[in-house]
């Protein structure tokens, strides 16, 4: 919007919060706009329904979680306000301002720590009532089932030399140093703009420039630093943004760092998977709250939260404020608030002799805060010396706490870096990195801007350097040594701040804001025996809420240590696991369309044009049926049909030892397979389990052409290669030609007449009998023709180079027109093969089926030399069959579901694996696994169909053409 004077005014935005209209400036966060509008209660707490207001303003604490435009659990402090947005508070009834469920706050005596383990399970019959009640009142936002997500959830894969996590001073310097050293860099930052915490701490940002001037003036004292140059923040951001080798991913959180430096990143509705050769963790710190009475009241804020509201959302803090601190940041924030018009009642400094002072502000040294007064908002602060007495009350509307930091080191823990708590800096520091991982800046306890910048530059250079000469595991990285040295130099001005738990009091002192866990709850849990930090976490649920310990980790460990009489280092930390921050499931589940493989045969377009119903077969698309299964069936049985079998696995083997290899792989015999013949075979593993079946054609002395089933094509390829890998001395050369050949099966009594029109080859039964294999020209194309009959008719399986697949397919259909040929799909083929009792591996067999029991005993030649599965099959034969795969005819006119049960004497005996209506039989037929004693021709078995037992008769012979005369005609 442009005003009359021509200058650009911030655009005014209107959105809705719990039915009220709220105005926001362009670029302001929802939370900032609510603060400016005086809406200080933005949520209700999880258990006690206490009012909660803004605290961290950085998307970490749970206090500002709302439902935005139907999406639950959105942190409104990092959500920019947009016109027309509908924001609703959660976890309150009837409203966030007046929540009747606040009654739980008074009933806390009945809800001690772990109360759900102790209450509500007796009497048992009450549980369903309790469950209903708990489900209604517990939990966070509700998913709106009608409301779908706007747009799509998506995935992206990226690669980089160096990934820098965190766009603060250390991260920016690391990125620039690495990129200047000649590697590609990806910088991931959670904020919308680079700069880290300096964005909202302008005084600190200024100090960099002044220190820079100072450092360049006295560079002699730090000779090793002369290689580095400190530049102002705006220059730094500009150089990083403009650097051609640096990619910046903003408003994005790294939720996991997985093996091999594989980063999971959430950016809005997109999941980015970034593979980095080197990772620099420059995630900095987050501020920790103090534990005192009523420390959850609206009006109690973190210093950085107040600074964000002041400088990023341009808000004010009307009234008076008390600043509680133990470091320089408290003095900076007090001055900034004062400059913005807030009256600072006092600075309460826990240190006795702080180096800082504030002009014109009353300062209580050696004091801490005991309690916040007020019921819906802060109205005062009770402070006292560290000993606890005497107390005095200061009037204020805001309590701003600046009491130190918790390092954001969970990505380092996740990837296996070793950290140890260092008392001198009051935070855990890295003592050993994993290879190809570095840390820099505040996460290394280097809080001074100059130190952080140099640490970042060091890490950036080290990462770039190790891309040239990879370091071995366990070697200490220079960056650790550097950081340790620099921390040592700063030791005198760092203050151990273990004061974040105030002396005990009667009112609630919250440690975990997500789950409403108080200091008393933690102490009670420890008294009940959950003294280990891990069991304490699980029992009390401290750190298990939406913030995942970001607000409560320091305090819960400190309280646990104090109550156990241990040190913080002895107490340890809970295991860090991904996701580092809560993640919408949509981000994980989002579409990956571009990454899924779809395979289509050369004839696919023809099938689609012919109106075939296509179905999935592994990655392949295959025609299920063209017009009608009955018509397709009839064409094959009466005249001729053709099916696209290009999806079969096809392997060509050449070499002097191929016969030896086949004899070893298959239970069949191959030494006696003549050139020009094809044989059916099955493949077993060493346990004798049937893996797959297919045909093996001998096209020359040392040349074989094999087919596998569609689904097992890759597995058999791998299986062959595995056995060959251990036998490099065998002369077997293997080529997977699955994709190189299109294949079609021409079948039916007239199929010879059809094919005759397309070839000069002699197709007569004398020259080309059943199970012959030949190479000839079909429709002008070199083809491998196998006379086999999966569907039980005279038939030819024709393999041609895939680029001619469509040509030959169309030629066959054209040649067959006078015989009323029809293409047929998988559904017709299933019936046709079932009538011949031909099994499908993986459908009619499973991981317990051997060929002896699967009705293929004639295949297994136990008198052969060693072959895969021989020992197991020999033992199975000795033992005798336990179950057998048999054909059956059902006595009634129903088609049972697959896997329907076969019952013997009322007990489970087996199951059916295939069944369907057989036109040849005029009834339902199928294949079933039954106990061996029932596997006799004519035996009656009972099949359970819809709860009824229906008798069926076992049949040894195929249901169609038992003598095979049609097949061999």
């Amino acid at each position, binding site marked *: 919007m442009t005003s009359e004077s021509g200058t650009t005014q911030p655009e005014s935005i209107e959105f809705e919060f719990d039915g009220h209209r709220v105005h926001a400036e362009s670029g302001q966060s929802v939370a900032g706009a609510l603060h400016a509008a005086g809406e200080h209660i933005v949520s209700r707490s999880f258990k006690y329904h206490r009012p909660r207001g803004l605290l961290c303003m950085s998307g970490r604490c749970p206090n500002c979680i709302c439902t935005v435009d139907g999406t639950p659990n959105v942190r409104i402090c990092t959500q920019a306000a947009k016109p027309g947005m509908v924001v609703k508070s959660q976890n309150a009834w009837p409203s966030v301002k007046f929540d009747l469920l606040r009654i739980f706050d008074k009933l806390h005596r009945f809800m001690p720590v772990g109360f759900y383990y102790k209450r509500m399970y007796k009497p048992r019959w009450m549980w369903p009532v309790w469950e209903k009640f708990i489900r209604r009142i517990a939990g966070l936002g509700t998913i709106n089932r009608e409301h779908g997500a706007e747009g799509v959830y998506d995935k992206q894969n990226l690669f980089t030399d160096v990934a820098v996590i965190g766009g603060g001073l250390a991260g920016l310097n690391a990125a620039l140093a690495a990129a200047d050293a000649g590697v590609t860099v990806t910088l991931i930052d959670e904020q919308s703009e680079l700069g880290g915490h300096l964005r909202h701490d302008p005084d600190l940002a200024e100090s960099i420039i002044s220190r820079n001037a100072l450092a360049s003036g006295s560079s002699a004292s730090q000779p090793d630093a002369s290689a580095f140059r400190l530049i102002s923040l705006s220059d730094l951001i500009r150089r990083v943004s403009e650097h051609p080798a640096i990619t910046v991913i903003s408003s994005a959180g790294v939720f996991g760092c*997985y*093996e*091999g430096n*594989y980063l999971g990143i959430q950016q809005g509705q997109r999941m980015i998977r970034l*593979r980095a050769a080197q990772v620099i963790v420059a995630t900095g710190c987050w501020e920790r709250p103090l534990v005192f009475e009523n420390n959850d009241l609206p009006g109690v804020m973190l210093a950085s939260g107040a600074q964000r509201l002041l400088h990023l959302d341009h808000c004010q803090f009307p009234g008076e404020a008390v600043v509680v601190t133990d470091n320089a940041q408290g003095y900076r924030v007090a001055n900034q608030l004062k400059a913005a018009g807030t009256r600072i009642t006092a600075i309460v400094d826990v240190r006795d002799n702080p180096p800082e002072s504030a002009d014109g502000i009353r300062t209580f040294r050696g004091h801490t805060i005991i309690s916040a007064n007020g019921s819906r908002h802060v109205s005062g602060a009770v402070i006292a010396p560290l000993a606890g007495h005497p107390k005095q009350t200061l009037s204020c509307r805001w309590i701003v706490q600046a009491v130190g930091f918790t390092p954001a080191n969970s990505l380092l823990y996740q990837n*296996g870096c070793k950290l140890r708590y260092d008392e001198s800096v009051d935070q855990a520091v890295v003592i050993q990195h994993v*290879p190809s991982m570095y840390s820099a800046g505040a996460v290394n306890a280097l809080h001074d801007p100059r130190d952080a910048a140099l640490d970042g530059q060091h890490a950036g250079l080290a990462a770039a350097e190790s891309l040239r000469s990879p370091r071995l*595991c366990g070697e200490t990285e220079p960056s650790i040594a550097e950081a340790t040295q620099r921390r040592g130099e700063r030791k005198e001005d760092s203050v151990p701040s273990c004061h974040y738990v105030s002396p005990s009091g009667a009112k609630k002192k919250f440690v975990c804001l997500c789950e409403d866990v108080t200091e008393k709850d933690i102490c009670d849990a420890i008294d009940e025996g959950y003294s280990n930090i891990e069991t304490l976490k699980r029992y009390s649920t401290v750190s298990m809420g939406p913030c995942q310990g970001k607000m409560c980790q320091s305090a819960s460990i400190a309280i646990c240590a104090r109550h156990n009489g241990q040190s913080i280092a002895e107490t340890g930390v809970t295991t860090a696991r991904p996701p580092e921050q809560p993640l919408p499931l949509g981000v994980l589940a989002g579409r990956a369309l571009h990454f899924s493989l779809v395979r289509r045969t050369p004839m696919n377009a023809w099938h689609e044009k012919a109106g075939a119903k296509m179905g999935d077969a592994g990655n392949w698309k295959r025609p299920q049926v063209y017009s009608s299964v009955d018509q397709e069936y009839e064409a094959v049985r009466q005249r001729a049909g053709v099916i696209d079998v290009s999806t079969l696995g096809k392997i060509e083997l050449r070499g002097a030892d191929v016969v030896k290899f086949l004899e070893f792989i298959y239970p069949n015999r191959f030494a006696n397979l003549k050139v020009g013949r094809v044989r059916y075979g099955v493949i077993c593993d*060493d*346990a004798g389990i049937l893996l797959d079946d297919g045909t093996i054609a001998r096209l020359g002395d040392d040349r074989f052409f094999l087919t596998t089933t569609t689904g097992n094509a*890759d597995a058999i*390829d*791998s299986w062959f*290669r*595995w056995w060959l*890998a*251990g036998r*490099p001395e065998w002369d077997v050369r293997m080529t*997977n030609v699955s994709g190189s050949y299109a294949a079609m099966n021409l079948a039916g009594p007239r199929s010879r007449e059809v094919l005759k029109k397309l070839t000069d080859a002699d197709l007569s039964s004398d020259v080309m009998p059943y199970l012959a294999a030949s190479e000839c020209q079909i429709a002008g194309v070199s083809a491998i023709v196998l006379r086999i009959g999966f569907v039980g008719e005279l038939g030819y399986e024709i393999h041609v180079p895939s680029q001619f697949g469509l040509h030959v397919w169309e030629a066959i259909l054209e040649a067959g027109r006078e015989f009323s040929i029809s293409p047929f799909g998988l559904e017709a083929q299933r019936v046709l093969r079932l009538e011949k009792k031909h099994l499908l591996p993986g459908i009619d067999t499973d991981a317990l089926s051997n060929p002896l029991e699967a009705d293929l005993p004639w295949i297994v030649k136990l008198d052969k030399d*060693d072959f895969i599965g*021989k*020992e*197991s099959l020999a*033992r199975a034969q000795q033992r005798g069959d336990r179950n057998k795969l048999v054909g059956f005819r059902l006595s009634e006119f129903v088609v049972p579901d697959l896997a329907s049960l076969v019952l013997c004497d009322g007990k489970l005996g087996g199951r059916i694996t295939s069944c369907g209506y057989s036109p040849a039989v005029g009834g339902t037929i199928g294949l079933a696994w039954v106990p061996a004693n029932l596997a006799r021709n004519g035996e009656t078995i009972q099949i359970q169909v819809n709860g009824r037992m229906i008798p069926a008769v076992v049949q040894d012979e195929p249901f169609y053409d038992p003598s095979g005369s049609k097949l061999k005609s």
Partner: protein
Amino acid sequence: MSFQIDCPNCGCRPVWEYHYGGTPRQRPDGSATERQWAEYLYNRPNIAGEQTEWWYHRSACKLWFLVRRDTRTNQVLETKRFASATE
């Protein structure tokens, strides 16, 4: 599992391009006892530490090769072709 394996043919690729093939084991010959066969067929070592194992580059060059890996950290320490392993 998101670690990378250095294929002797193709170089460094993510683990999901590969297929695990177990540790190399001696297949018993015909004279082995039933117990030896059962051991071979059904029992697998489960080492927490370094082991040599077969991997197959199924999504690319289809090579079976040997990888020395630390099962605790999934750190790949060495990859080599089988033929060179016997040298």
